[in-house]
C-alpha cells in the first residue's frame, strides 16, 4: 500500500494559507472525494488498462523551480512570436514567463483566485470543477484538492483574438522527481473564437507526473480549435483531462497527438449541452519503447440535433501499449443525434499491446451512432514496393507510418503547428 499521508499534510497546509481564496470549498470537496476513493486501480472500470498507482511509489516535490526565460526559449513552439503564451511551471501559472500579445478588450487572463473573487466570480462558481460530475476517480479529485495557482481565461463576446493561445506545461525535474497539477478554466463567450495549443515538457532527468485538468466552456456561436501535443521524456507521465462543455450551439475541433512519454492518460470529455452542437475529435498516437498511452473520449449528447465525429489512429511498437476507450452517451432528450467513432491501430511488435473499446449508451430512439475499430499491420506489399525502388526498409516504414498519420495531421489547421508536429513525428519515427 502506498503511503499518501504526506498529501494530507500538504492539503491541510494549503487550506490554511489559502483559506479565503474563493476556491477552498472546491478543494475541500475534492480532497474528501480523494480520501474516499483513493487512486484508481485496475479494478476501477475506467482504469482497467492503465495503472498510475506505482507512479506514487516515490515522493514527488511540488515546490521550487529554477526555470528561466532561456529554458522557455529552447522549447517554444513555432509561431510563438505571434502567439499568446501561457506558461505553467510545476503546475503553477507563471505570470513572469507568460506573455500576452492580445489586448484586454479581446481576452483576459487571470489567476483563478483573482477570477473567483472579481468580475468573473459567477462564472467560476458555476463552471469550476463541473467536470467532477463526470470524473469520479481519485486522480481527478487530487487535482481539485490542490488547486493553487490555476488560471482563468475569458475570450470576450464577439472577439476573434488575432493571436492563438499556446499553453506550456514545464516540469522542472532537474533536482528531484516532480509532480504538477495545473488547472485551468477557459470561457469562450458568444460569437468568439479561440485557437489553443497545449504542450508538455519535463526538464532534467528525474521522473515527472503531470495531473492536469482544463475545463472549457463554449457559448453560443463560438468556434474552438484545440490541439494537444505530447512528446515528453520517457519517464514523464501524465493524466490530462480536457473537459469541454458546449452550452450554446457551437463548434469544437480537437486533435490530440501523443508521441513519447511514460504513462499518458488523456480524458477528452465533450458535453453537448445545446441544440445543434458540432464536435470533431481526432487523435494520433505513435508509441515506441515502453510508452503507455490511453485515450479516453466521452461525448455526452444532452440536447437534440448534435453532430460529433471521432477518428483516433495509432501505432504500437516495441513494448508500448495503446488504449482507446470511446464512450458515447445519448440522453433521452438528445433526439436526432449523429455520432460517429472510428479507432484504427497498427501493431508493429509482438510485445506491444492495443486495447480498444467503444462504449455506447443510448437512451433516445431517433439517433444515428456508429463505431468501428481495427487492428492491423503495415502493408507488406507497399513496403516491398518502396524497397524495390531502393528505399531502405527502415525509411520505407517511416514513409508508410507518416502516410498513416497524415489523415489525422491534416486536421491540424494552423500550418505552423502542423509542420511542427510533422517534424516531431519524423524525428520520433527515425530514432531507432
Amino acid at each position: 500500500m502506498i503511503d499518501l499521508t504526506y498529501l494530507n499534510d500538504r492539503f491541510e497546509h494549503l487550506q490554511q494559507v489559502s483559506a479565503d481564496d474563493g476556491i477552498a470549498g472546491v478543494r475541500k470537496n475534492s480532497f474528501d472525494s480523494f480520501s474516499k476513493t483513493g487512486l484508481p486501480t485496475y479494478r476501477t472500470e475506467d482504469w482497467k488498462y492503465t495503472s498510475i498507482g506505482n507512479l506514487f511509489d516515490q515522493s514527488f516535490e511540488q515546490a521550487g523551480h529554477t526555470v528561466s526565460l532561456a529554458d522557455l526559449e529552447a522549447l517554444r513552439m513555432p509561431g510563438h512570436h505571434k502567439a499568446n503564451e501561457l506558461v505553467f511551471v510545476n503546475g503553477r501559472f507563471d505570470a513572469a514567463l507568460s506573455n500576452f500579445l492580445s489586448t484586454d478588450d479581446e481576452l483576459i487572463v487571470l489567476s483563478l483566485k483573482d477570477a473567483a473573487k472579481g468580475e468573473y466570480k459567477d462564472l467560476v462558481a458555476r463552471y469550476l470543477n463541473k467536470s467532477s460530475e463526470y470524473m469520479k476517480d481519485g486522480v481527478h479529485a487530487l487535482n481539485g484538492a490542490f488547486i493553487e495557482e490555476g488560471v482563468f481565461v475569458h475570450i470576450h463576446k464577439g472577439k476573434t483574438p488575432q493571436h492563438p493561445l499556446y499553453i506550456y506545461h514545464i516540469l522542472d525535474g532537474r533536482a528531484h522527481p516532480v509532480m504538477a497539477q495545473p488547472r485551468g478554466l477557459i470561457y469562450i463567450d458568444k460569437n468568439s473564437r479561440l485557437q489553443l495549443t497545449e504542450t508538455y515538457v519535463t526538464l532534467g532527468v528525474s521522473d515527472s507526473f503531470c495531473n492536469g485538468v482544463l475545463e472549457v466552456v463554449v457559448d453560443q456561436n463560438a468556434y474552438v480549435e484545440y490541439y494537444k501535443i505530447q512528446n515528453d521524456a520517457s519517464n514523464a507521465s501524465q493524466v490530462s483531462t480536457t473537459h469541454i462543455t458546449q452550452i450554446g450551439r457551437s463548434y469544437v475541433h480537437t486533435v490530440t497527438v501523443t508521441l513519447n512519454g511514460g504513462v499518458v492518460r488523456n480524458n477528452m470529455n465533450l458535453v453537448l449541452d445545446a441544440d445543434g452542437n458540432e464536435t470533431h475529435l481526432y487523435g494520433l498516437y505513435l508509441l515506441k519503447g515502453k510508452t503507455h498511452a490511453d485515450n479516453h473520449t466521452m461525448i455526452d449528447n444532452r440536447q437534440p440535433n448534435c453532430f460529433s465525429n471521432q477518428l483516433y489512429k495509432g501505432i504500437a511498437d516495441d513494448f508500448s501499449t495503446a488504449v482507446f476507450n470511446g464512450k458515447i452517451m445519448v440522453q433521452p432528450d438528445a433526439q436526432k443525434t449523429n455520432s460517429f467513432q472510428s479507432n484504427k491501430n497498427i501493431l508493429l511488435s509482438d510485445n506491444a499491446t492495443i486495447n480498444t473499446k467503444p462504449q455506447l449508451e443510448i437512451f433516445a430512439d431517433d439517433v444515428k451512432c456508429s463505431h468501428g475499430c481495427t487492428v492491423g499491420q503495415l502493408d507488406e506489399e507497399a513496403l516491398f514496393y518502396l524497397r524495390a525502388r531502393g528505399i531502405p526498409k527502415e525509411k520505407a516504414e517511416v514513409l508508410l507510418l507518416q502516410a498513416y498519420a497524415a489523415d489525422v495531421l491534416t486536421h491540424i489547421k494552423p500550418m505552423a503547428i502542423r509542420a511542427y508536429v510533422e517534424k516531431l513525428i519524423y524525428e520520433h519515427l527515425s530514432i531507432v
Partner: protein
Amino acid sequence: MLSIKNIHANVEGKEILKGINLEIKAGEVHAIMGPNGSGKSTLASVLAGREQYEVTAGEVSFLDKNLLELSPEDRAREGLFLAFQYPVEIPGVSTTNFIKAAVNEKRKYHGLEPLDSVSFLKIMKEKMKLVEIDQSLLSRSINEGFSGGEKKRNEIFQMAMLEPKLAILDETDSGLDIDALRIVANGINKLHSPERAVLVITHYQRLLDYIQPDYVHVLYNGRIVKSGTKELALELEEKGYDFITEGVDLNA
C-alpha cells in the same frame, strides 16, 4: 549482366520454379512468354527479392554480385528494376517525394551527392515527356486512384527516373488499351541502350509488336522449355502454347 543458373523456388512450400537457366548480356532484350501459372511472375519476384519466395537451389549473379544475398533495396540500387504487374496504391505518400527519395538513395549508394530540388525537377520534366505522364498524377499519392494504364505508365516513369541497368517488366502490357500500350512501349524503347538490358515477361505477343526482343524464351511448368528469336513469339501467337507444351514431359 544477369546469369541465372538452375534456380529452384518455392512459394508456401510448393515448388514453382524447377531449374531455370538464363543469360542476359548488356544491350539485349529478352522476352519470357508462357501460359498462366507457368512461373513467369515468380521468376520476376525472385529476382526482385520478394520475401515470400524461397529459393531452394541455384545461383543468380547480377553484375558479378550474388543477387540472392542482396536485400530488395540493394538490388534496386545496384541497378535492377521491376515494373510491377500490380503496382500498389500507397495513400499519403506523394509520388514525387517517393521518386526523389528513391533517386537519392541510389545516388547515396553509389557515393554521389543527393540531387537538389532544381536538378531533380529538371530531370523529372524530361522523363515526364518521355513517357507522356501528366504532372497532376505525380503530385498525387502513389498510384492512388490511378487507372490501370496510369499505374503502368507510372512504373515506366519510375524506371526512366532510376535508369536501371536491367529492367524487368512483369506483364506490363496487361490491362492496357492500344494507346497506352504504344506509350509504354515507346518509353521502354527510348530507355533501351547498349549498356542496358530488358527482360519482358508477357503472356501475349502484342507487346512484342512494339518492343523487338533479341531472344524469346518459353516458360512452362517452372522451366524454360524452348528458346529462340522473335520469330518464336510469332509462332506462339499463331499456334498457341499447345504446340510447345505438347510433348513436354511434366515429370522430367
